């Protein structure tokens, strides 16, 4: 679930970021639209999507969680990539064209490698948020057991107080998180290649 939504969000978010930064000016509306998913309270987005999906008579499950998660994930990816693009030297794109590269080649060989660390960082952030996200998943999951995400399981357990099972589960989740984090740090440094 997290993998799929991260993949979609990374693609859309990166394109969006480049598109926005290519503009000389953009209205407040566009800015607000991109920014909104990050600050809108989870609970509001959750009930909005719940109402929306039930109105469309959509069967809810993993796919609806994915649809929902991409909304805020793409906003986070976009903001991370945009931050990188702010300091991006656009003259290297021109240099590439000047040396004979087509727009596609330029993107593949120049733009993408340079912003790759930011794209990966954005994807990791999205992935972490997605794995972690509880409220929206809770509302858009429907009834099926198959679409229970880990946080939903944990929430259900915590409500009954402290048990050895949660302690064990918590330890495992923490270990996985820290491993992923360390990996991402290593990876990031490797790509920047200092």
């Amino acid at each position: 679930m997290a993998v799929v939504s991260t993949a979609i969000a990374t693609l859309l978010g990166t394109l969006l970021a480049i598109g926005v930064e290519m503009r000389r000016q953009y209205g407040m509306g566009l800015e607000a639209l991109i920014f909104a998913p990050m600050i809108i309270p989870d609970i509001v987005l959750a009930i909005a999507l719940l109402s929306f999906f039930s109105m469309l008579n959509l069967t809810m499950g993993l796919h609806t969680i994915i649809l929902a998660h991409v909304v805020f994930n793409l906003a986070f990816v976009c903001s991370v990539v945009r931050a990188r693009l702010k300091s991006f030297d656009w003259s290297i794109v021109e240099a590439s064209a000047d040396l004979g590269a087509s727009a596609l080649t330029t993107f593949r060989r120049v733009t993408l490698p340079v912003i790759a660390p930011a794209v990966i960082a954005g994807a990791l952030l999205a992935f972490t948020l997605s794995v972690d996200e509880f409220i929206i998943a809770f509302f858009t999951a429907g009834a099926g057991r198959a679409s229970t995400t880990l946080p939903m399981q944990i929430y259900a357990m915590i409500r009954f107080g402290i048990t050895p099972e949660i302690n064990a589960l918590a330890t495992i989740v923490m270990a996985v998180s820290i491993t992923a984090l360390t990996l991402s740090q290593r990876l990031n440094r490797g790509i920047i290649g200092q």
Partner: protein
Amino acid sequence: MSEPRTLLAIDHVSKKFGQVTAVDGISLDIRENEFFALLGPSGCGKTTLLRMLAGFETPNDGRILLDGHDIARTPPNKRPVNLMFQSYALFPHMSVRANVSYGLEMERLPAAEIRSRVDAILATTELVPFADRKPEQLSGGQKQRVALARALVKRPRLLLLDEPLGALDKKLRGAMQLELKRLQHEVGITFVIVTHDQEESLVMADRMAVLKDGKLLQCDTPHAIYEHPADRFVADFIGVMNFVPGKASSDGVVAVNGARIAGKVPAALSPGAPAVASVRPERIRLFPSGETANRTTGTVEALAYHGLDLQLHVRTPLSPKPFLVRVTADAADRRPVASGDQVELGWDAADVRIFEE
């Protein structure tokens, strides 16, 4: 020597950005194998003109003919013209070698040919020891050479250089000016350089164009422009000039204090019109021995020793600004002057240029 062939003809080219006219009907011919400089203050349109030659801007009007073919609307990656960017625009994620190879890979040349051409250009630009470094590990001068190598390796018909030495410190700049000239001679490619530094274009260019507010003011050899500037702006912009404001007469300018400055008056100036007489600092003699057409006295306000010469600021009744006088160190030794001294200045009528005010 035969008449040099025109490589690039800029024909009544104009470019507007919204309401602003950046380039206003400029026509210029750039000849095969010359080192051409576009010079002007910032905002004069020189960079816009250069970007139109590279293909990053499309002119609103006019033609750009390369070898007789209009390339004004050819995209940058289809032009045999390369640009050396002001920021160098080196690809930060590629080594020096990869940066230089990039352009040849775009031409889909065989690997062996790419290798040999890259090796050759790295040798010419003395970059062989740095071939495997990333741009961030290079000094400013080295980055500049990589940018140059990356553009030159494609053997463009025309190499454009946007303020190529702007990011270097003064001493390195002097060395690179000569280096660029040497390289240009060696590779036999036409160079067009954009600069706001008049000294740089005087040193490097075979011919230069002075631009202001999107218009071409003068296009000639550095010597001709220095000695015979087309108007007051060019006279002021190129080198250092002393100006004496006044009114035109039949054989010179009458200064505000009534003194007469002898010189050749341009035909367009009718007597009595506001005019300005000018003379270069190095043409003025201190305590002139013989007869000179123009003469004045003044007080030394400041002097600066420059090694080879001595520069004096002399307050005279001729103009509100002090005169700048350059005398050789020898001359200064023969008759030392100090701040506050009264001095006599003299210069010939032939060294006077008169412009419309």
